[in-house]
């Protein structure tokens, strides 16, 4: 699907795709998925992130740190660019389900429909779901 690359220069190809399907705070799934992304980038892999289902809530702006003095995930998301992780995608349908638009989100992920997500998965050697 070459049109994706034309849209904003974000390649849909890469070595590792992290599919993030959990909201922050309720569990450590999101944090652990992001940790893997950072490890991949530290090993010079091309890492892409797909925020899917309730995972889109990770990107909701205006979040604070978790209860019990836990660190939030926003600082880690902001840090992704320092690891050159800039291939960020979000499930369009999940955005609609939660009534979200791009302006509600931090970062600037690219929205994908089903076909786009299938294409994204097809073009990564390793797909890890968190």
């Amino acid at each position: 699907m070459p049109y994706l690359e034309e849209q904003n220069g974000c390649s849909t190809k890469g070595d590792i795709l992290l599919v993030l399907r959990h909201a922050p705070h309720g569990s450590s799934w999101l944090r652990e998925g992001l940790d893997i992304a950072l490890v991949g980038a530290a090993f010079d892999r091309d890492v892409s992130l797909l925020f899917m289902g309730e995972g889109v809530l990770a990107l909701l702006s205006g979040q604070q740190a978790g209860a019990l003095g836990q660190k939030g995930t926003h600082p880690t998301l902001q840090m992704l660019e320092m690891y050159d992780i800039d291939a960020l995608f979000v499930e369009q349908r999940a955005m609609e389900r939660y009534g979200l638009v791009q302006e509600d989100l931090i970062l600037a992920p690219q929205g994908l429909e089903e076909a786009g997500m299938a294409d994204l998965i097809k073009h990564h050697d390793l797909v890890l779901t968190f």
Partner: protein
Amino acid sequence: MASTEIYRYLVLNNGQSIPVDPEGYLVDRTHWSLDVARILAKEASIQLDEEHWAVIEVVRDFYRQYEMAPAMRPLVKAVGKQLGAEKGRSIHLMRLFPGSPAKVVARIAGLPKPANCL
């Protein structure tokens, strides 16, 4: 990762004792001060000059912003952004903080060990 295990104490000139973990990282990063940095640097056989302090400040900024100490790649990028491209090179950081710059500078800057530094 940050450790809470107290392994030994650094003793400052004013008699204050600062707990450090088995790898030499501060157990409580709020204990950090310029004197603490000098002692930690001395343990790594590093005499801190202006170049070192500039990098230490970049790394402490990084932590303030992202709540994590940078691994090598983001360290190089952050230093390049803040101090200029000629400083943002691994060779420069290797010279200032020999061995494993990301780990050494995090330790001297009083931050936890970089979590994803492999």
